[in-house]
């Protein structure tokens, strides 16, 4: 107990110091872990409504935000980790502002977005009561090495989960995890309604998946299925009688709709009889796109969309989401650790939808590699400028009177958004309204 209080004090001090320096979010978490290795267990294990882990390759941030919004709309006090801090130290750091010296977080429930590898590390400290497993796609293979390995990480997490897991019924890597959960752990699914099964390729890559003898599970009345009405409006169906919706999200695209479906199915498991469809819809319709995930910035009176791309599936989804509304486009590719150091994956994305309009500018450390990739898809590139600051300035001034869109990798997005925040008076990372 004393050790925990010491850890809280040391962590709060480190947090204050690193905020003064404008530093990153991991250091205070590291201090706390060093003083009290069991800090996370103390902080979270007693929460009355449990600990929910959200993981998978794509959609973690958006889905977590949606699930938190639904739970808060139902009156729960929810602890969650802010965008991007999806490693255990980031989670600890994010607790330090509000945690009392007892080291026990005051909340009904925790909903945490965790990186696939760190989700297991987290589970070693705190067994999640619930896990929401979104999908498996190729992402940063330099870190996870193989997609089979990523699938195994999710299965291991499911095994550690004590009460309920929510699985993607359409992703065979995820739905087959149902066989791996402990006895007594409830399995619920989310997915797309059979009537739009032909749109699944928009959500996942086909070329790394094989025909095999796996038979997908049949959805039951407890499972949530996405049924779109048109490009923007959709509902989530549970069996024949229960509907959540229709609703329209602020974030565009099928990927955002399936994330809302996952969040709705999970909220329904967590809230059981107290789940209210109208409250879920109200909450989901108010959720703003997270920073850089289809966020729209007012740039000199014209919309500027910032779209994070991390892997072939994500880039493919982003292009199909925005492809029917071509605007002046910039692509910014960095190859730092958080971006994935290998840019080979750009060759697993088809850029043909950009061909008519072309790309105004490529930027980032690998600006020339991106321009080269586009050249091989016969997409014209007007300009290549590796320096992100110079590139952004040129893009904003040369196309001042046009709607614009920037596709960018993680660290490029962070850098661009910092500049945009200063220029247009936006909130900064860490200050994002929940």
């Amino acid at each position: 107990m004393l050790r925990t209080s010491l850890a809280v004090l040391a962590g709060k001090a480190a947090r204050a110091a690193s905020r003064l320096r404008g530093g990153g979010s991991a250091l205070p978490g590291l201090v706390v872990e060093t003083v009290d290795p069991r800090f996370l267990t103390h902080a979270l294990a007693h929460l009355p409504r449990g600990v929910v882990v959200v993981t998978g390759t794509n959609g973690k941030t958006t889905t977590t935000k949606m699930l938190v919004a639904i739970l808060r709309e139902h009156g729960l006090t929810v602890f969650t980790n802010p965008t991007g801090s999806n490693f255990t130290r980031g989670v600890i750091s994010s607790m330090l502002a509000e945690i009392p010296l007892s080291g026990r977080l005051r909340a009904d429930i925790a909903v945490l977005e965790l990186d696939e590898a760190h989700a297991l590390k987290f589970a070693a400290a705190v067994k999640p009561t619930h896990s929401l497993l979104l999908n498996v796609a190729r992402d940063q293979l330099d870190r996870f090495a193989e997609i089979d390995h990523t699938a195994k990480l999710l299965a291991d997490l499911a095994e550690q989960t004590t009460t309920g897991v929510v699985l993607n019924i359409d992703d065979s890597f995820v739905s087959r995890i149902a066989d791996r959960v402990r006895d007594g752990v409830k399995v619920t699914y989310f997915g797309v309604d059979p009537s739009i099964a032909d749109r699944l390729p928009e959500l996942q890559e086909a070329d790394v998946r094989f025909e095999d003898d796996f038979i997908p599970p049949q959805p039951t009345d407890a499972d949530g299925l996405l049924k779109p009405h048109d490009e923007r409006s959709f509902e989530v169906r549970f069996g024949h009688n229960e509907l959540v919706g229709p609703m329209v999200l602020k974030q565009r695209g099928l990927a955002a709709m399936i994330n809302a479906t996952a969040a709705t199915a999970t909220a329904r498991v967590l809230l059981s009889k107290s789940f209210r469809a109208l409250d879920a819809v109200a909450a989901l319709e108010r959720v703003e796109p997270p920073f850089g995930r289809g966020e729209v910035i007012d740039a000199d009176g014209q919309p500027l969309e910032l779209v994070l791309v991390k892997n072939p599936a994500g880039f493919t989804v982003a292009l199909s989401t925005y492809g029917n509304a071509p605007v002046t486009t910039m692509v910014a590719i960095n190859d730092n650790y958080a971006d994935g150091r290998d840019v080979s994956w750009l060759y697993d994305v088809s850029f043909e939808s950009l061909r008519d309009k072309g790309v105004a500018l490529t930027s980032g450390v690998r600006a020339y590699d991106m321009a080269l990739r586009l050249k091989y898809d016969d997409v014209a590139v007007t300009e290549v400028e590796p320096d992100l600051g110079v590139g952004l300035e040129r893009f904003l001034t040369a196309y001042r009177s046009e709607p614009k869109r920037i596709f960018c990798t993680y660290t490029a997005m962070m850098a661009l958004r910092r500049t945009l925040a200063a220029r247009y008076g936006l909130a900064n990372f860490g200050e994002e309204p929940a």
Partner: protein
Amino acid sequence: MSADNGHIETASKGRIKVVHIYPREMSIYGDLGNTRALASRLRWHGYEPVVHQHHPGNDFPTDAHLVLGGGGQDSGQARVENDLAHNAEALRALAADSTPMLMICGMYQLFGNAFITVEGERLPGIGILDVTTQGNAKRMIGPVVLRTAFGDVVGYENHSGSTQLAPGQQPFGTVRSGMGNNGADGTEGAVTGNVFGSYLHGPLLPANPSFADALIKMAVERALGEPFLPGRIDDEIADQARTRQVRRLVRR
């Protein structure tokens, strides 16, 4: 020159058949980009590319002019083993007949004599390249710069196998930055006749056009029995992409 499905081509210098072996099972790191690059460059040079995908369960096309293979996961390698054994003779015959081939990562290993797993199990390869690969617990991951007969070559390696060249086996290049075949002897890849093996993804060919054109030259001269007549291609962007990586990675 040819009318294909009613589509009239402008005068082509000749038709070149590019075969990508196991595109589903063995192309997880963007290696299909090599096929895309060769098809585009053949077109830009004035030739007519025909791309054929070879999937397990079919006979390998013996009229191939250029053969490409990529990297896969262990599960992908398991899925192609039987087909590779079935078509080994056809591939060895094409290799002996000077057909240019480029095998990356997992397919490079399978073109060697054997892959020996961490547990000591010996999985036979088809023995076109005189190399043997030992499985490791640790992966060799990161950007690479090589010195090769085609100039500096850049790419990205991501392999757990450690490959040894048999005495007399030529490497594809020597390592200027990165690990290469085994992280110890400074070699990367292997070349026998017109068959090249390498660990480099990136994918390898788009950013290294002089190597891509060397493969095209071999394919054209063997297929058409006449000298390769290159077109004019502006490779400024590829050259920038490559030389910037070399500058970042190689300490002088």
